[in-house]
């Protein structure tokens, strides 16, 4: 999967956790999940769980801590998919 393909898929994962659909539609690798998408920090764990089941990967605690913006989410997801 290319980074763009992962980003497009990631939009679907993030969708239930943000009410700001306009910001979601225009996400780039620099988009911050909490600051830009106004996602509740408690929901980050749900996004990780959803991503794990969507890509059939396992995201450890240290990698999860890095997932603060769209770019770092793509980094972690492609890394883990590569390992699988």
């Amino acid at each position: 999967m290319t980074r763009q393909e992962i980003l497009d898929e990631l939009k679907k994962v993030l969708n239930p956790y943000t009410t700001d659909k306009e910001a979601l539609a225009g996400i780039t690798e620099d988009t911050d999940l909490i600051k830009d998408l106004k996602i509740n920090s408690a929901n980050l764990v749900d996004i990780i769980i959803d991503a794990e089941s969507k890509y059939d990967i396992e995201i450890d605690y240290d990698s999860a801590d890095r997932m603060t913006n769209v770019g770092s989410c793509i980094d972690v997801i492609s890394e883990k998919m590569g390992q699988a």
Partner: protein
Amino acid sequence: MSRRVVITGMGVVSPNGIGLPAFLNALQNGTSGIKFMPLYEELKFSCHVAGMPDFVWDELRDYISEVSFYGLKARGVAYGIRAALDAWDDAGHQRETDEPHWDTGCIFGNSIADTEAMKNVIAKVDHKEAKKLGSRVVEQAMNSGVTSYITGRLGLANKSITNSAACATGTQSILMGYEYIKHGYATRMLVGSTEHVDTYVFGAFDSMRVLSRKYNDQPEKASRPMSATAAGFVPGSGAAAFVLEDLEYALARGARIYAEILGGATNSGGQRGGGSMTAPNPTGVTRCIVDAVKAAGIDPLQVDTVSGHLTATLADKLELQNWMTGLNRTKENFPLTNSLKSMIGHSLSAAGSIESVASVLQIVHGFVHPNINLEDPNPEIIELVGEKSLPTSMVKKEINIAAKANFGFGDVNACLIFAKFKN
């Protein structure tokens, strides 16, 4: 300074009607909300019927944000949110606020947090998958879940309490909100209670052999308080909520006032003198009624109608005897008395608040709703209170004062006195 407390908004999710117009219509026509539950037959319960609201889950989208909606599974929480926000809207208050409402609190009750949510926790933990539970489980498994969703949605920032007193919960929550305003700690209180009797809670009651089991093929006939054929209660689910306001505040904003709460009382029989975990001490019950009347500052003979607890067990007759003693009545002047449970079953923690909405609607619209399934009244009950005091069809009548009580496991009692508002 002691303040007067009035009701300015109500919301209801009842097995026989969701929202005030549907509920009022059901009350006046004696419409049953008891349904056959195929799953209960499959699970080999003795009782196969229940009072279930026709709740459309997707309509919750109009009440909470999409993010909050996604991942919400607890039905009791959902009923409570809907009833509370309907009451808030009904009072004419705005849902959206940036500034917390420091003057407005919430007291909401329930018996148990969502057991379906807990079942999910237990299954995942036992399968060594705790990591997959996610962030939305705790808020739905905690007893204060329903209160937290309501206060968060509306920005209520005064006292936030989750109340639990078994079947007296709803009545007691309303009383607590009333007292808080009366003593000047808050201007408005959003109060009420919710209950979702899921299969696990239902099964536990079924095992106690206290549920109706002889009318599984005629669900609408299964809840029969005070009848000769009464043989156990029918569990129900639902919620109701009230917006209570300090009278001066309500008048200043030109609010529509449904009724006034004159007072109330809550106590316990101490599980002595005939009282136990599951049975009320009659002295405790009569004291509770007497104390409520006294707190309301009325003569007991002024009570026009009684909404009883009256679940359709052997306790019905004893309860009527307690009302007779507490209100200083005889067979000749016993007040018109009804049991909403004949239509909707017993919704445990939600019973007190749903039945209180019925009491207030009777005051507002001048009627006493029928007792259904009372075509064969218990002769001992008729001997005690007379046939005329137990209406089987709607009675149109001006109601100035209504008494409402509920009694719960743990020998807990709560009684409220509602009155037509007169300034």
